[in-house]
């Protein structure tokens, strides 16, 4: 056997993607850091992209506040990153990830809102550690009974858990259902003129906060991925029993995957609650989980950059369709967002089954598998 030179028939997208990654990889460490820092700075400037002539107005949303959309993207990206740990890294198919988002948001609300039966009315910051601890616990609680379940059984059970959370949120009196919790405090901090940094009319500070959290989470998740932990997850994903026989503590690492995924999802919930100031049971529907999963896989399951892109897209696309009138029925294109979105998902997956930015491993896997397909 010998490696044959790659034929130059690689599709454009793949090629440029590889080239970009290759290019970045070839640069010296300082250059690489400079590029990355450059990107980060640009990300922080996104709220002002509308000011950029010509392209700016194409990018920003029309029917809905751009900075709010950016903030929404930031917590969608968080959710995608968290789900990527569970699905992409550890290979545990979770169809109910929104449950953790809900737990994060609800614990925050219960601790802070004047509507809560607890009447604690903590500040937002004080609520965070409790909320995250509870979410992680929820992750472990979900993980524990499901440890023995294989792939798709796990999927339906996670879906069930999320539904249980939603139904409890809707129907249990203390969770207030559709009435919800209002007056959830915003993150603290005042500007020099005494007005709060995190107000209600301007979402930019929330976006910056969200982005910062995203960056921290990316760093953490990346460190985990490239370590014994990430390797163990991968081994579990490939052959759980063999992994265990090779000494991998499958239970421990699966629980960690759930806990970490839950933690990140909870973070998203905490941010969400802190921004809207009002939550009710309508937000945490099943379709939301499925959407996030679609984002992760579409972006490139198992790859951090992919998860970020996927998470951002699933929130950006529908919002971008807002305020555009369709020429035939004179309604907002927003009405068609899911139909268009579904079509796009199919298209993307058919063209790039490994996702938009696959991990190197997945990309290779697919390329190999593709050529192996027998005549049909």
């Amino acid at each position, binding site marked *: *056997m010998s490696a044959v030179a790659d034929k130059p028939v690689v599709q454009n997208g793949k090629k440029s993607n590889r080239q970009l990654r290759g290019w970045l990889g070839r640069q010296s460490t300082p250059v690489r850091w400079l590029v990355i820092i450059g990107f980060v700075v640009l990300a922080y400037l996104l709220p002002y992209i509308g000011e950029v002539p010509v392209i700016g107005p194409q990018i920003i949303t029309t029917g809905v506040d751009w900075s709010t959309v950016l903030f929404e993207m930031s917590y969608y990206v968080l959710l995608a990153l968290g789900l990527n740990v569970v699905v992409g890294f550890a*290979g545990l*198919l979770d169809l109910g990830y929104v449950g953790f988002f809900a737990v994060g948001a609800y614990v925050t609300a219960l601790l802070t809102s004047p509507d809560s039966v607890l009447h604690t009315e903590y500040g937002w910051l004080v609520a965070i550690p409790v909320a995250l601890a509870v979410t992680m616990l929820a992750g472990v609680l979900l993980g524990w009974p499901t440890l*023995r379940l*294989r*792939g*798709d059984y796990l999927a339906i059970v996670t879906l069930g858990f999320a539904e249980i959370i939603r139904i409890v949120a809707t129907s249990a009196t203390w969770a207030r259902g559709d009435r919800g919790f209002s007056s959830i405090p915003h993150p603290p901090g005042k500007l020099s003129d005494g007005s709060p940094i995190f107000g209600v009319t301007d979402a930019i500070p929330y976006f910056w906060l969200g982005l910062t959290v995203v960056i921290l989470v990316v760093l*953490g998740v990346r*460190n*985990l991925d490239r*370590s*014994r*932990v*990430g*390797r*163990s997850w*991968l*081994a579990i*994903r*490939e*052959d*759980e*029993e*063999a*992994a*265990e*026989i*090779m*000494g*991998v*503590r*499958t239970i421990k690492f699966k629980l*960690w995957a759930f806990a*970490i995924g839950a933690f990140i999802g909870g973070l998203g919930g905490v941010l969400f609650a802190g921004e809207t100031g009002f939550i009710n049971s309508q937000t945490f529907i099943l379709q939301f989980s499925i959407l996030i999963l679609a984002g992760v896989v579409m972006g490139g399951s198992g790859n951090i950059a992919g998860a970020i892109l996927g998470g951002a897209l699933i929130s950006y696309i529908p919002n971008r369709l807002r305020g555009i009138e369709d020429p035939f029925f004179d309604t907002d294109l927003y009405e068609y967002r899911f139909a268009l979105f579904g079509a796009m998902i199919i298209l993307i997956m058919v063209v790039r089954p490994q996702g938009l930015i696959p991990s190197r*491993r*997945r990309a*290779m*896997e697919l390329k*190999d598998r593709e050529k192996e397909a027998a005549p049909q």
Partner: protein
Amino acid sequence: MSEPHVESPEELDRLNAGPVDEAIAAGPSSSAADSSPSKYGDDVLLEMDNVTLRFGGVVALNGISFALRKGEIFGLIGPNGAGKTTCFNAMTGVYRPTSGQIRFQGESLIGKKKHEITRGGIARTFQNVRLFPEMTALENVMVGADAHFKTSVLSALFRLPRFWREEREGRARSMELLRFVGIEHRAGEVSRNLSYGEQRRLEIARALATNPTLLCLDEPAAGFNPAEKEELLGLIRKIRDTGVTVLLIEHDMRLVMGVTDRIVVLEFGKKIAEGTPAEVRDNPAVIAAYLGVPTDAA
């Protein structure tokens, strides 16, 4: 979506069994006998003590007893379906014996988790290759090496010194093992793409990476040609020389006879012979059940 794993009714029963069942399964002698010295003497590494394992109607192991001594190469042979692989599965915690004891370094293995057994010093390969197909050869071995590392989620998350140390060590050791089994040139290739023979070698490297005291090889030479078998023979000796005890299942008599110190022969789940290669080879029961015409060492 994931590849299903072994899930026999028995295993289900075992998983569902409460502590009461476990006590019954372990037999009357359970806890007292656990740490009792072996009747085979001090240098015993692993001891099968009257082990029986049933699958519904099939009695795969029927009161098997034998013992491995430290540092030897021990052969396990017998006709197809005699229960050899089942022996491995019982030792490594994949199946739980219906009755009997298995002791490793004086400690009972019954009821231990698979990864605990591995960390305790027993490593194995599989009769049907079971690598992590999408991981590179090197990564496959590193998973094995990870078994005796301690990098926790926190030290990985914050890149504490332990992380760096263990990562470096693990990588170096894994490369060394790949070299040892002769496939270091494929280190960066995903294991799915290796040929069958290479995959078998990789399995050995991965098992060795867990730092075992006992290495169990299930038909490692299957699919090797005689020349390659010769190489494998050398490799097994080399492994033994590093101080690892080897338990070998193999149908190739030349290999078995050439490398093992002692052999146990199973038939229909029963032990029918035990002894040195020469003794076993001339044992009429073994010839009748297994070898066929003695001269034809295929």
